[in-house]
């Protein structure tokens, strides 16, 4: 792989500080990658990702596809002989990419996450029906999944009744904490 020109040599320290891991304990054995639920479609397997962090390839890392198709199933973390918390690292990188406004390789995934957060911001809980509608608007396909939605509606799965948190402001103030950049 071509080494990235913009290399961030403090990336490893940064990640270790924030994610409460020690990447120097990595055996490079690849056990994480062999079992990874989506490893076969990752552009960089978890093992490579750790290697890239050590090489400080920030740019590559923040732009990679793996960030947006990691299902956070924790298999890597659980099987790792050094129990390195890889899911947390993925979260950290994803968050960083998001804050830097880097467009996700899977925009719809990012959109979905954002809408979910919006919903939490609005009423402190996730309301599925409105969120689905917003999502369809966002991805510009109003009838996405509509067939399924109908079947679910018949089964009474999609309830228009929405419950909300009463002291919503206590929830909202979490959003405006200094650490979070409004994106």
């Amino acid at each position, binding site marked *: 792989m071509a080494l990235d020109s913009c290399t961030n040599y403090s990336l490893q320290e940064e990640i270790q500080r924030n994610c409460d891991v020690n990447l120097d*304990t990595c*055996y*490079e*054995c*690849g*056990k*994480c*990658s*062999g*079992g*990874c639920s989506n*490893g*076969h479609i990752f552009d960089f*397997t978890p*093992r*490579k990702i750790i290697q890239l962090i050590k090489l400080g390839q920030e740019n590559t890392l923040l732009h990679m596809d793996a960030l947006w198709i990691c299902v956070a199933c924790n298999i890597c973390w659980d*099987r*790792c*002989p*050094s*129990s390195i918390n890889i899911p947390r690292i993925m979260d950290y990188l994803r968050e960083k990419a998001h804050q830097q406004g880097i467009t996700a390789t899977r925009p719809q995934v990012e959109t979905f996450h954002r809408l979910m957060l919006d919903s939490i911001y609005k009423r402190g809980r996730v309301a599925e029906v409105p969120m689905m509608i917003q999502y369809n608007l966002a991805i510009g396909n109003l009838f996405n999944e509509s067939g399924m939605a109908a079947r679910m509606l018949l089964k009474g799965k999609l309830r228009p009744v929405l419950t909300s948190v009463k002291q919503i402001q206590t929830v909202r103030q979490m959003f405006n904490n200094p650490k979070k950049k409004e994106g």
Partner: protein
Amino acid sequence: MQNTAKTALVIGAGPAGIEAALKIGQAGYSVILIEKEKQIGGMVGKLCSSFPRWENPQEMLDLKTRELGKFLSNITLLTNTTLKFCEPVEKGYLVILEDSDKELNVKVDAVVLATGFDLFDASVYGEYGYGIYPGVMDALEFENQLKDWSAHKSQTEAPGAIAFFKCVGSRDRSKGNPYCSKICCMYTAKQAGLVKELFPETKCYVFYMDYRSAGKGYEEFVRSVIEEKHVHYIRGRASKVLPQNNRLLVRAEDTLMGIPIEVEVDKVVLATGVIPRKETARLVEAFGINTDQYGFIESEFGSPAKAGKRVFFAGGCNFAIELPGAQYQGAAAAAEVINLFYQDEQEER
């Protein structure tokens, strides 16, 4: 001249214990060699070949048994026997040995611990499904399998493929065994080689992080297994075993290619690491000697085989060790014992 005034107790009749007993006996002192199993030979007795020269360990054992036979006047071999009780006395220990029916009280002037090691319990690794999928076996079980195969080669039909996983219970902090068990690389190469010997058509895959072959002729041994026997080494720690149409599907990453791969095999052999015996812990307590954090016996500073007051050790109870190494340590322990006895005699004169 023969001097039977002094007696040494050797616990465990594996290669190390036998060697120690022999040397002490040959020096003219009397030895009690006890073994909890029915057979002598310990681990070695369970193996069907050895590295780096493909010798049959059984032959070596027979040789040693013959030698023991020559010194029966000095060396008393008690199988099915364990140490029941011991208390320190002046210049030695009072011990009670017990077998199925009777007990035996003796005063011994020195003790050699040669209790050997145990294998890691692979069922801790849920992902490998040891004890769940019949095709998954640990190293010793596979040694038996190999013996069985070579016994009735004609009427067994060759397995299509076998996968060997290395570092099972070794180099794994999350399972509390950060150490390298040292022998697995070699015996895995040996087992894979034997399979190819028996069934050249069988595909052998060895999933490894790196192979550690520090030792006389070891590297050549592993290379020959790869280059001449065509065992297929895949660099990457196997990650998951799944059952698939009555075979086993192994998932791993080929870290050299950087690509997740799948291999369908009939058997999975786990190169299980080495751990201390439970019995050793009991003895350690009884004789009040030191162990490391894992429970392996520690030597006193500056001495190769001394564990405590008139207590010595040899072989696997100290750490993972291969056959020759165990014999060296047995001899070393014997040397210390003989020296100790000699000193005693000087004082007594």
